[in-house]
C-alpha cells in the first residue's frame, strides 16, 4: 500500500507536490486559528508560536524516541495544547487588543527561547529525520487535513461550539446563560493549539529542517490573513483562504519581486468588496443542500414537530 502510494506520488511534479502539501499545512493552521479567532472571537496574533512549539516538540520526539508518527503527532498535539492552556489561563482574561498584544508577545518569547535552547539547536535550527511511518508525508498531511475538517465541523455544530459562539457574541449574556466563559475560552485556545501543533509537526517532518525564525510574526499574520480572507468563523472559508494564500505566492512567482505587491493588492480588494471574507455570512452546507434540492435537517425536524402538535 505504502509503496503503491509512493509510486503514485512519484508521477506528480515535486514542485507541485510541495505546493499541495503547503496548502494542506496552511489549511490545518487556518482551521486551528479559526477555532480561536473565528469561532470564539479571541484575536490571536501569535498562532505561529503553537506551530513552532509543535514543530520542535515533534522533531525532538522523533530524534530522541522515534515512536510511530501517529503517536508522535498525538503527543505533540497534547503537549502544545497543555502549553496553550497554561498560557491561556492568565492571558484569556484580557480581551480585544490587549489579548492580541499578549499573544504577540508570547510568540516572540517562544521564538527567542527556541533560538537559545540547546535542545532546539539554537539559531542553527534543527534537521529533522524522516518520520517513523511508511505512508508518504504528503498523504499523511492530507489525511490530517481531512480529519481536522471533520472534527472542526463537528465542533461548530454542537453544544460545545454553540457555547464558543456565545462567548464570541456577548460574554455577559453567555455567562447569564450558564456558560463558563473562562473555561470555554481556555478550551478553545487549547484546541486551536492542538491542531496548530500537529500542523507544526507535519511541517517539520515534511520540510526536514526547521528554524525558530520560520515561525515569527509574519507567519502568524499569514495564518490570520487566511482566516480573514476566507471569512471569520467559516470552515469552508478557511479552507479556501488557506488554499489561495498558500498557492498565490507560488503562482505569482513569475512576477519576481512584484509578487508581494500583487498579493497585498489582492487582500486590499478583498477587504473592500467582501469585508466579511469570501465565505462570510454564507453557509456552505446550505448551498450544497439547496443545489440538491433538500432542506437542512434542523428545518425538517422543526417542521415535523410542528405538524405533529
Amino acid at each position, binding site marked *: 500500500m505504502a509503496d503503491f502510494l509512493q509510486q503514485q506520488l512519484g508521477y506528480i511534479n515535486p514542485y507541485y507536490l510541495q505546493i499541495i502539501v503547503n496548502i494542506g499545512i496552511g489549511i490545518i493552521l487556518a482551521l486551528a486559528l479559526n477555532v480561536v479567532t473565528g469561532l470564539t472571537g479571541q484575536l490571536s496574533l501569535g498562532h505561529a508560536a503553537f506551530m513552532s512549539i509543535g514543530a520542535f516538540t515533534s522533531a525532538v520526539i522523533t530524534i530522541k524516541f522515534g515512536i510511530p508518527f501517529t503517536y508522535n503527532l498525538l503527543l505533540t498535539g497534547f503537549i502544545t495544547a497543555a502549553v496553550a492552556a497554561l498560557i491561556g489561563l492568565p492571558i484569556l482574561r484580557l480581551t480585544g487588543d490587549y489579548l492580541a498584544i499578549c499573544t504577540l508577545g508570547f510568540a516572540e518569547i517562544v521564538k527567542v527561547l527556541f533560538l537559545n535552547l540547546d535542545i532546539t539547536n539554537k539559531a542553527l535550527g534543527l534537521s529533522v529525520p524522516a518520520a517513523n511511518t511508511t505512508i508518504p508525508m504528503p498523504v499523511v498531511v492530507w489525511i490530517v487535513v481531512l480529519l481536522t475538517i471533520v472534527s472542526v465541523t463537528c465542533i461548530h455544530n454542537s453544544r*460545545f*461550539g454553540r457555547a464558543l459562539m456565545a462567548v464570541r457574541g456577548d460574554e455577559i449574556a453567555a455567562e447569564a446563560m450558564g456558560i463558563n466563559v473562562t473555561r470555554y475560552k481556555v478550551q478553545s485556545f487549547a484546541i486551536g493549539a492542538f491542531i496548530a501543533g500537529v500542523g507544526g509537526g507535519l511541517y517539520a517532518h515534511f520540510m526536514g529542517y526547521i528554524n525558530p525564525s520560520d515561525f515569527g510574526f509574519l507567519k502568524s499574520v499569514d495564518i490570520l490573513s487566511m482566516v480573514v480572507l476566507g471569512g471569520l468563523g467559516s470552515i469552508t472559508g478557511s479552507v479556501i483562504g488557506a488554499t489561495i494564500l498558500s498557492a498565490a505566492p507560488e503562482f505569482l512567482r513569475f512576477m519576481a519581486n512584484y509578487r508581494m505587491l500583487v498579493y497585498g493588492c489582492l487582500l486590499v480588494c478583498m477587504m473592500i468588496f467582501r469585508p466579511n471574507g469570501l465565505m462570510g455570512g454564507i453557509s456552505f452546507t446550505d448551498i450544497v443542500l439547496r443545489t440538491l434540492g433538500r432542506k437542512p435537517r434542523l428545518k425538517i425536524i422543526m417542521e415535523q414537530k410542528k405538524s405533529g402538535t
Partner: protein
Amino acid sequence: MAILELNNVTIRFGGLLAVNDVNLKVEEGTIQALIGPNGAGKSTLFNLITGIYTPTSGTISFKGKPVSGVSTHRIAAAGVGRTFQNIRLFTDLTVLDNVLIGAHSRGKWNLAGALMKLSPWVQKEEGELLDLARECLQMVDLTYRAFELSGNLPYGEQRRLEIARALALKPAIILLDEPAAGMNPQEKSELMAMIKRIRATGVTVFLVEHDMKFVMGISDRIAVLDYGEKIAEGAPEEIRLNPKVIEAYLGKGAADAHA
C-alpha cells in the same frame, strides 16, 4: 416559600451607595415587580442577584442557598434566567441557535460530545435540547422566525426572543429587565398575556419596569426603590396610594425627596 431572599443587601461603587440595605422576598409562583425612578438601583439589584456584582454587605439566597459570591454562570445554571435592559442577543446567530445557547446548561456533552456528534447519546441530547428550544419559541410566538438571524428581528421580537432564551434555561425564576421598553400598546398587552402564561408554567417572575399601567396590571406584589433604598412594598393598590411612592415619582420639592 420565598424562592429569592435579599437580606440587608448593600453595594457601594466608590463613594456611590447604589443599593442600600435592601430586604426583599420573592414568593414562589408570583409575579413580583420592582419599580423606581431612573438610577434608583433596579438594574444593579438584578446584577447583584445574578452574580455580576458581589454585594458589599448582606446576603442573597436562592431556594434557601446563599448565592452572593457565586459566579454568574453557576447561578444561571442553578435556575436564574434573565433578560437585559439593553438587549444582549447573539445577533450573528439564528433565533433557534440563540435559544439553544439558552438551553446550554440543560445539556451535558462537551468537547467529547462534539467529536462524537453522530453517536446515539449525543443525538438524543441534541434532540432534547431542540425540543426544549421549540417549546420556548412557541411560548413567545417566535417559531416562525426560528431560522432568521436574531439581529434582523424587529425590536419587540428581539425582546421576546430574550425571554425565550432565558426560558430555555428551565429557570425557577426569571428576571426581566424592562421587558416592555420600546413596545407599542398592543405589543405590551401581548407581553402581559405572555408573562402570565410563563407564570402558569410554574416559573416565578421578577421584573423591573417603568410602565405603571403594565406593572399595576400584572404584578402580585410591587417593591419600590428610590436612591438605592426600598421605600415601599405591597400589593399594586397599596403602592398606587402610597404617598412616599407618589413623592418619589412626581416630587414634592427637592428638600423632601432628600430627607
